């Protein structure tokens, strides 16, 4: 360090009054910034709890009975609606053959004997037109008055002919765990301006905070510069 000491600049060892003040302001700004961004998300992670959707509770109750062959028709219809709602969640699930196969098998079981063959034939026709929109299927599933689930019915089945479909396919529990359990806490469940609170915090508040930090920093540092006679108008 010989001969260079006078020019030494070290963020962690500021040696002039101006640098000390400057570093202090920087540290305060970065601390607020870091705590609000990363601290908040760490807090969310710490307090979160796996929270199942209502459909998952239905699945937990009915699925074991279905596997054991003891589920009632009403329970089967409830589970079928859970499958149907899942298919409505995303394109990936609309293309999930295990889930759609499970729903097809479950629907087949729910239909009265006189309609089973017609349903089977209708699903076979899916190969060509990819849609199945039958009033008796909506009725069997109990969705004829549900505008959202009714809209899913034409896209929810796979051809039965020659396929081995099961309402309890081994992939289904994994799908249920993945799509029907969410990590929630009071931060995600409370509302602000219509938003889930955490969403508002990240999408709106944090951006406003960044602006505020910058604004305050600029005002404060301008004052510090003036106080220490730095950054004259001619600079």
């Amino acid at each position, binding site marked *: 360090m010989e001969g260079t000491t006078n020019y030494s*600049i070290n963020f962690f060892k500021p040696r002039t009054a101006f640098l000390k003040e400057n570093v202090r302001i920087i540290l305060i700004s970065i601390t607020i910034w870091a705590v609000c*961004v*990363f601290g908040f*998300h760490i807090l969310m992670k710490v307090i979160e709890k796996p929270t199942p959707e209502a459909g998952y509770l239905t699945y937990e109750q009915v699925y074991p009975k279905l596997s054991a062959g003891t589920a009632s028709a009403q329970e089967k219809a409830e589970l079928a609606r859970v499958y149907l709602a899942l298919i409505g969640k995303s394109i990936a699930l609309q293309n999930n053959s295990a889930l759609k196969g499970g729903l097809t098998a479950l629907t087949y079981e729910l239909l009265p004997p006189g309609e089973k063959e017609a349903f089977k034939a209708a699903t076979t026709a899916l190969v060509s037109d990819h849609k199945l929109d039958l009033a008796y299927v909506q009725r069997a599933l109990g969705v004829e008055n549900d505008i959202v689930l009714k809209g899913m019915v034409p896209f929810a089945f796979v051809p039965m002919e020659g396929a081995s479909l099961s309402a309890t396919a081994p992939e289904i529990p994994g799908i249920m765990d993945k799509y029907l359990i969410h990590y929630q806490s009071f931060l995600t469940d409370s509302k602000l301006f219509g938003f*889930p609170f955490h969403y508002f915090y990240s*999408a*709106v508040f944090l951006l406003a905070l960044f602006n505020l930090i*910058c604004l305050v920093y600029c005002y404060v540092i301008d004052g510090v510069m003036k106080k220490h006679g730095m950054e004259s108008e001619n*600079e």
Partner: protein
Amino acid sequence: MMKLHAKTLFCLTFIVGLLVALPAFGASGSTLEGGFKLIPALILIAMIVLFITIGFMNKAEGTSDYYAAGRSISSFGSGMAIASNWMSAASFLGMAAIMYGSGYHGLSYVVGWTGGYVLLLVLMASQVRRFGKYTATDFIGDRYYSNGMRLATAIIAICISFSYCVGQFGGIGIMFKWILGINYTWSVIIGASVVLTYTLVSGMLGVTKNQQIQYVILIIAFLIPAFVLTFKFDYFWLIPPIGYGQVVSDIVAGTTTPYISSLGHPMATVPTPEFAMPWDPATGKDFFQWMATCFALMIGTAGLPHVIQKFYVVPKPSDARWSVTWGLFFICILYWTAPLYSAFGKILSSNPEVGALAKDAIVVYTAQLGSVHPLIVGFLAAGAVAAAFSTVSGLLVAGSSAFSHDIYFGVFNPQATGEQQMRMVKLATVVMAIGVAGVSLLKLGLIAQLVAVAFSLAGCTMFPLFLVGIWWTRSNRAGGIASLTVGSTISLVVIAYFIAGKYGVSFPGKDFMNYWLNPWYFAWIAGPLAVLANVVVSLMTAPPPVEVQKHLAETVHGVK
């Protein structure tokens, strides 16, 4: 003043002319995909002509004028230029796309791309301005007193521009596909040709002043559909970035509304909490990935050469600080609004009949599905292309200038005349555009993800050099080289794994790399490691020359 009035008059005449003339074509552009759409095509052409015309009206007179706009820009104007420069296809299209596909994980991009400005402001803005160089490469070359470092960072700056451009070309391709109704490959080829012509025509014009006007037009194009959507579907429309909050809650709980989309489907959805819940298993993204992406984008933002360069266009260091503050505010106007498109897009496209939509075009599809007037949708789509154009143009010029000035002139041909250098700039622009178009045809990822590679690259190469170089006089050339070696080696390994993975080649430790050192966020660890390498190697070797320390202490930090 007269010049300003002439410009204002020109812009007003242009906008009024557009509004008067275009209703004649109001019937076209009513399908999500498909044929040629006249209105967006006309608006796009008009917008590009306007930008070029304004560029000619503010033509740069010399090198200083070109690089730094004669250091005559106010902090307000410079902030607007920073925002315009920043508002690329990634902001305009990519952010809504990633939130549409990955829910809350997408907000790590929003927070990362804005939070980085705080780092930039408090740690670097005024110090970089006081250092007194025109480009990031010059800063590093002088601070680390090494032409080798200057050359290496010039190459890295080109790589950053290149990978940033790949995402932009993807956006241009998708929008050209939408406007022209042709396939993606031809869209990229045509889009690349148009943007190359635009760059060669406008590249040497008055960039900064031009960008201020671009900002105003682009932000209007982005905001109008947001007001229309919230008003039309009966949400709080006076402040759309607040009004869409209820849409998010409706998606979480599931909803049925009395409205129908332009395709005739009810605006309704099953409960979809995964859209808003943090690191939801359904999105395939976890807590670590949220944090790593956010942090990598933040340090990348603070290390992007073309952003840092903006601080040289203001007269005083205090203006550099205020220009960041204004720039962030103008950027946030767009970033507060972008999630609105993903939320409305989610609910309006929830009917299975809509099918799979190209996520990167969801902003435009949302406006279409919401039955927003075709004129406004056209304006929005043209705005997206124009945003990509202005960014690509700036990046191609920055990359080719770095090649011509720092590599060709600086290393291979120091006797090159100005004319030869200019020829080299044009040649490099063409080569770079062809290369970028070729890579973007591979469809390696979403726009925001591809741009994130550039941020990680900047975050583990440029940012550590600036950070340590400004705040520690003891940092020397050997430390700088070590820092750059660590950052660029990790970058190369990550990119090699990524490309190999895309072509089905499996390297050892592939899963480890894909998770911990993913190309979208590898700077989360590579950046700190590069800082550490700089510190350790600097301490093990001789201090930098006194004049370097003196300049840093006296000029940059005001120590007398």
